[in-house]
């Protein structure tokens, strides 16, 4: 899990470097908690009314150990995402999500698979061979976004000082049909988000089945 949580930070650092070229200086520190006050990882935070997204840089969704890494990948509109297979066997990655329906039929480590995500929204990734594999790519139409780490925090750069923005949080298990929630934020102060989560279907976040009815 440590390795998994490192990757978004690297991506975020890269983005930060890209953004630093602009005149925007302020940084928003945001944290997401669930209704029990526990930090929520893999939540995507993005600013709705910030600057227009810059030219997208490629991103990577690795298949490793029969899972997607990272579990949640946030990209801006038009980003090309590579799907490198690091496992010694093949995968058959697919998405039936409306934002991007695609199918990467049985490929191995030698094949480079690329998919361009040009519609904002969530894309649930699965593998036709390995039912347990689940990952998400969330496409945002924003220049400012980040994914929370295991401690539930994320840093969003390039914001103007003392300006209030509408920030949205998306999480695969967030209650509601859009799985998103919105909140005004100001970079001068750390933002705190509290979201209600549905139970995890498969305990991927370490939580147990709360009840077994039958």
């Amino acid at each position, binding site marked *: 899990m440590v390795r998994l949580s490192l990757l978004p930070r690297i991506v975020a650092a890269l983005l930060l470097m890209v953004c630093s070229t602009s005149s925007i200086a302020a940084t928003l520190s945001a944290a997401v908690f669930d209704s029990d006050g526990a930090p929520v990882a893999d939540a995507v935070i993005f600013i709705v009314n910030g600057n227009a997204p810059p030219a997208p840089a490629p991103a990577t969704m690795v298949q490793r150990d029969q899972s997607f890494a990272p579990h949640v990948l946030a990209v801006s509109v038009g980003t090309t995402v590579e799907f490198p297979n690091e496992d010694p066997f093949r995968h058959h990655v697919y998405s039936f999500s409306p934002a991007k329906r695609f199918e990467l039929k049985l490929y191995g480590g030698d094949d480079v698979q690329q998919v361009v995500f040009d519609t904002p929204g969530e894309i649930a990734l699965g593998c036709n061979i390995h039912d347990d594999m*689940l990952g998400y790519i969330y496409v945002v139409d924003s220049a400012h976004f980040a994914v929370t780490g295991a401690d539930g925090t994320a840093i969003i750069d390039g914001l103007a000082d003392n300006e209030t923005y509408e920030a949205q949080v998306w999480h695969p298990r967030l209650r509601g049909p859009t799985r998103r929630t919105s909140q005004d934020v100001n970079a001068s102060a750390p933002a705190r988000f509290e979201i209600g989560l549905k139970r995890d279907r498969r305990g991927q976040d370490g939580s147990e089945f709360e009840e077994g009815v*039958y």
Partner: protein
Amino acid sequence: MFKSFQTKLALFFTALFLLLQGAAFFTVQEAIVQNIFDQSRDQLVAANRIFADRIQTRVAALSEGAQILASDFGFRTAVATSDKPTILSALDNLGARISADRVLLINLDYKVVADTQNPDAGQIEFPFYDLIDRAEVEDRAEAFTTLNDVIYEMVVVPVLAPVPIAYVAIGIEIDSGFAEDLRRQSTLPLDVTFVTGGSSTRWTPAVSTLPAGAQTDLPDALARVSLESVGADVPVTLTLAGSDYVTLVQPLQTPDGSDGVSTILQYSLDLALVPYQPLFVVLAALAIIALAVALVGSIAIARGVSKPIRTLDEAARRIQAGSYEDKVTVSQGDEIGRLGETFNQMMDGIAEREARIEHQSLHDAATGLPNRTYFERQLNESVGDSKESPLTVLLVEIGRVSEINYTLGHETGEDLIRIIGQRLASMVKKSDMVARHSSTMFSILMPGAAAADVRPIVDRILASFEDAVPVAGIQLDVTAAIGEACYPDHGTDARTLLQRADTAIYEAKASSRLFATYDPDADPHKPERLTMMGELRKGLDNGEFKFFYQPKVDIAAEKITHVEALVRWIHPTRGFMPPDDFIPLAEQTGNIQKLTEWALNAAISQARLWLNADIDIIIAINLSARDLTNRKLPEQIQHLLDRYSVDASRIVLEITESAIMDDRDNAMAVLTALSKMGHTLSIDDYGTGYSSMAYLKALPVQEIKIDKSFVLKLASNKEDEILVRSTIDLGHNLGLKVVAEGVEDQESLDILRKYGCETGQGYFISKPVPPEDIETFYRESRWSPNKDTQTPPESESHSA
């Protein structure tokens, strides 16, 4: 109702037996039913588990099939692309493969996208959200649901891509086949019913193996079942269409939005009892046989008790009726048998006591002879038995008893009576009866004896009294008078016969034989005589009675000194009534007292009149035997003497011998009193009785009056002359004056004078005359004390 002991006892035992049998029968039945109930509960609970297992297995199979479909990439593609025809065909295919009745595809908005039963329907909402929600989290959810009024066993699985993009719901209809299937799998012949509804709504059977009638009753029966027993493996008993069912209600898992669904597992007790039917038949047969035995037995026992009781009852009735001869025969050796013996002893005791009491009541204690009551009863019976044959009753009156009682004491008197009774009893035949009739009388009943047959016995009895009776060392002289009455001549019943015999005793006492047969002509109780007595009393009041006075003269001085008062009754219709016609009658009927009262009053008042007129004549009055028994007589006379201021010496009282002899005790007392008062007492009709001179001496008398039968022919009869002469001498020797009555001629008077007789009376001197004539006689006749010799009046042939 139920009067007899026998019925009561039989009824009691039968009722008791029925009660016990009924209790036993129902206890057994209850135990069997309870046993069946317990057994069937276990069976039902077991069946319920089997049923649950079976459902699990089916659900597993269904969900497996569904998951296979849901993870099919082609199907997922079809779902993702909303390719409805492909989806429907895939669902149909799945349904056919796993024998599902209905397969649905539901999208994330809970809308039914495809329905194998309604392929062309638009999107309708899937009502069971929680099934979807559960399936989302748990990859599978199953429940029983009602959809379009059909019960489905339903499994929902998500279509994952890889997150849920839709849900597949597979339903298997719960139909009668399923119920039958369950029923077959049970070891018991269970009935399986699936009902919809539940706690708040009415239970509605959807599928059932129950008979139609039982199905109809089921909802109401279930409505009464306590909710606590529902689903708690606690069976209840329901009555459906008249049959009892052990019932287990098991609610099934249903989602929100569905009606409740429950399984009803039932076991018919009727069916369960079928194997026990022979047992019940045997029990019932035993009960009937035992009841019959109990009935017969109790009747037999009751008979054993009630028959001797009836016997005793009859015996008691016999005792009540006074019959003690028939003994009770109770052969039992038990208490009742002993009671029978006691009864017999009681009967003996009662008979003995009754005989004793009867004997006492019918016998005289002193003599041991039958008493008057017994005698009268016997006499009446004999009269009834005798028909035409004659029968004689004798009454024997013993004289001098009161005299003996007076002088020697009552004990001696009773001893005497007893001895006489024994003597009488020894003199009659065995078939005759001697009874004590009164203190001085015995009665003798001689059945079959005519008057002539009785004579010798009467003679023997009378002869026996000629000898003295030895009592306590003393020889006692007693007399007896016997009166006789014969059936049927003198009466036809005891009372009449005894009364007539009693009447005859009067006659007997007056006769020399001391025996008389009843003479109707002499009976004072004859109606015409009784009438005469009534007239006598009336006559006394009406002044029909008069005294005529016959002068008595001093023979030596030839002067009148006394008169004898002789009663005359001038009856208004019969004319002159001779004293002999009514005086004995008056004595016998008790009217003499009234006559005496009149006589004393008339004579004493006359004495006063003559004293007033200066006529010195002493009046003699006759007293009857009855007068001498009246102890108040001296007092009465004294009263009159005082009233008229007449000295007792001016009244002479004449008494017959027999009057004194009748009741010597009283007569003696009365005569002594009268003598003391100063009266001269004179024995009338001397010579006709039996009294000895010695006896007369003991009496306070001063005078005897020779009966006229000796005087009338004195002049012509030498024997009479001797008798008269010796009587005069005797009287004089005893210091008594002598009066001769019936002096009819001068010769007789001369003879009397010659022998020294003091006083003479007779027709030669004067017939009885009214008192005014006495005055004339006193003053003017030759017997007047005032004149010397006068010619006597012409003699008459009548006697006074």
